[in-house]
């Protein structure tokens, strides 16, 4: 019975992990697709990737995965607070990456608000948001790479 439960838990963890990675991958891809680079550098010429040069498509997909990311993060935060506060300990790497993701979410949400016609953000603030969003995603990618190379985890399980 325990074995079966552990198996289910492990499966859930794996699904969540891959869901998160897939979301970050598509958000990064479509995020860079919002800049005019994929056509210039022939990436949109690769069969099947032509959509990367379609700005309205990339922004739509970016929004879709942003919604998914917000859902995943909300789930993980509440799950941690309700059920895992004692069983897992978040590492320094986890806190750093978590902060970067939070920063990305905040700047991203502000940019979404800005895209509505009612928004009235100052031009300087909008440029600041863009630069923060871009810098944070670069930091997240670097931190992710560092964590893969040096096997740094988001958290470790506390033996009870």
């Amino acid at each position, binding site marked *: 019975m325990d074995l079966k439960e552990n198996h289910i838990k492990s499966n859930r963890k794996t699904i969540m992990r891959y869901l998160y990675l897939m979301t970050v991958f598509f958000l990064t891809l479509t995020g860079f697709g919002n800049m005019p680079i994929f056509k210039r550098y022939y990436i949109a010429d690769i069969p099947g990737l032509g959509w990367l040069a379609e700005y309205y498509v990339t922004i*739509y997909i970016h929004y879709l995965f942003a919604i998914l990311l917000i859902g995943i993060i909300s789930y993980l935060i509440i799950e941690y607070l309700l059920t895992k506060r004692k069983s897992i300990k978040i590492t320094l790497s986890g806190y750093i990456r978590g902060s970067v993701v939070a920063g990305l979410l905040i700047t991203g949400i502000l940019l979404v608000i800005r895209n509505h016609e009612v928004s009235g953000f100052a*031009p300087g603030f909008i440029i600041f948001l863009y630069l923060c969003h871009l810098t944070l995603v670069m930091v997240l990618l670097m931190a992710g790479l560092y964590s893969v190379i040096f096997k740094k985890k988001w958290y470790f399980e506390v033996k009870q």
Partner: protein
Amino acid sequence: MKNKISRRSFLKGTMATACTLAAAGIPASAAGAADKEQLATLLDIRKCIGCEACVEACKEVNETKFPDPKKPFPKMYPDRVPVMDWSDKQDVTDRLTPYNWLFIQSATVKINGEETELTIPRRCMHCVNPPCVKLCPWGSARLLENGISRIDPDLCLGGSKCKAVCPWHIPERQTGVGIYLDLLPSLAGNGVMYKCDRCYNRIADGELPACIEACPEDVQTIGPRDEIIKKAHELAKEIGGYIYGEKENGGTNTIYVSPVPFEELNKAIETGKGKPHLQPVKNSMADSNNLAAAMIIAPIAGVVAAAGKFYKMSKTGK
């Protein structure tokens, strides 16, 4: 005389503007409105005689804003990156260029069975929610509170995304100018995008945009958007005409009134590079903005799922 009154109305307060309105029959263009409300222009196509006085005035007044590219241009990679150089063709006036932000389009149509040539001043539509501004990846295109969308030449990298997302493909690029020259000129950027900024600096100073001031036929009227829309409908009703720009791309601040349907006009005008169409345009930003509403639901769904898991665990005691 009308122009004098209108110009004065920019400088005066609401009361003075109301008097001006009554006297001139021109929709309010008060300085207060210029600061806070979106200003729109109404173009009565019947009045345009195609004299290009507006085109010349635009070129003259905005000359200082035109690009002054450094040559030779830096070699750009890869080779497919197009060099867009209009500096040797600054006199071109039959299309939009970085040196010509307004041009006259001609259409030969039949009105009451009689063949008539209509001329239409064309420039940036100044959308209410402009995709060129909202989707600019650097924030170099900006929307002013008075509804003017303008591209900051000191920040624009010339990636031409604004042109790609504009339903009318209005902005035009000039290579060899702008901040990209100081960054990675060979690998990123390609100049600066230029388009009508509806003489934002003149409006800020309480003056009329050059094209409106110079027009001998008073083709254009400027004022708060609500008033301009109302006036456009009244005019359309009066002449049995048609409106373009009110709903296009979710609404613009350039409202045309024509005696013939725009479908007909669109077929009669020459369209193509630098020559925008007059087709119906759906709201470009609507899809993503509608999707944005789902972002409010996403955290709720996440919280409910986690809370459900917690409830299930507490019930089973595991």
